[in-house]
């Protein structure tokens, strides 16, 4: 259970927001926005889209809190919504998001946030991730970038712990082939 610097765990903030406390919703946004942004960026969202997608993710989450059963983590649920939104965006753009990111990375142009732009492994990894099947990419990022346990990943993706492990294994195997 994730507890923020203010001490209130996510489920308590969710209950508070349900009771009309806007500050609680604001705290949830501040707590998870950066992680969502990183996840979306690594999943292929353009830098111009990240803020919008993060905003849409929270809007959908707060509007549909009845859909969160509380048995998985709130953050995991946010990742699930974000992944679905990105998938929709990708469909709308007919793949242009991925190509855009790929060209950006291959060209090696300066990264405004200074995030591993000069790191060859990081760039190769980003290119490799965008070539993975969606589930493998999501599991890899949730495990490695976000540090979620397999059970939490399974809950976030509506899968099983065993399936999450298998996706991770295949993702790493393919990334090794690409980076070897």
């Amino acid at each position, binding site marked *: 259970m994730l507890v923020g610097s203010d001490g209130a765990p996510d489920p308590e903030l969710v209950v508070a927001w349900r009771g009309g406390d806007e500050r609680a919703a604001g705290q949830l946004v501040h707590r998870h*926005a950066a992680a969502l942004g990183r996840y979306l960026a690594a999943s292929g969202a353009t830098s111009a889209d990240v803020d919008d997608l993060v905003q849409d993710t929270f809007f959908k989450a707060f509007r549909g809190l009845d859909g969160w059963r509380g048995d998985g983590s709130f953050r995991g649920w946010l990742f699930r919504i974000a992944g679905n939104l990105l998938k929709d965006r990708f469909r709308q753009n007919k793949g242009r998001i991925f190509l855009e990111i790929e060209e950006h990375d291959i060209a090696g142009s300066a990264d405004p*946030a200074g995030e591993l732009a000069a790191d060859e*492994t990081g760039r190769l*990894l980003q290119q490799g*991730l965008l070539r993975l099947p969606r589930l493998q990419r999501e599991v890899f990022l949730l495990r490695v970038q976000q540090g979620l346990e397999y059970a939490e990943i399974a809950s976030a993706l509506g899968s099983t712990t065993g399936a999450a492990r298998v996706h991770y294994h295949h993702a*790493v195997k393919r990334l090794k082939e690409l980076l070897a």
Partner: protein
Amino acid sequence: MIDCAAMRDRMPEAARGTVSWTGAEVAHLATCTDCALEWRIVRAGAQLHAGTAVAADRVAAAVMARLRAAPPERSVIRRLPWRGSVIGLLAAAASVVLILSAPRLQRPRAGNASDTATALGILPELQALDDGQLRSVLQSLGSTAADATPGVVPHLEDLTDSELQLLLHSQGGE
């Protein structure tokens, strides 16, 4: 002896700094090329887009503004204080529908008083049709059941109500 699989399992945590490698594990990473490559990937993955900046204040304000304009969605059922009764009634209604429609889902059997059997009783000539004839009749009616799956012979009980009705009319029944 280092267990490569166990070590790789801990790599995400090690990359995030929540666990540390032992001296033996560090030495292993220097000699096992496969583990070293995976460690390089996991370390890079843990740092991927670490500098991504999200304007949390702006996002929070925008989300709140949108939420005020459109309050949280709540299921209609959940809003009802007597939702338990509603669910019970819905379940009872579903049971009745299932009971009434169950005979249509089964193959006709002797003594089965289904709608299909009733139709067959009214029109014995339908019962006399062989599979090829039944397919021809269905195709002439434009039935989807006739061409849904190549090689699969249609059955009367597979037809929808409207298809059965068409068939009965085509054979001079009601």
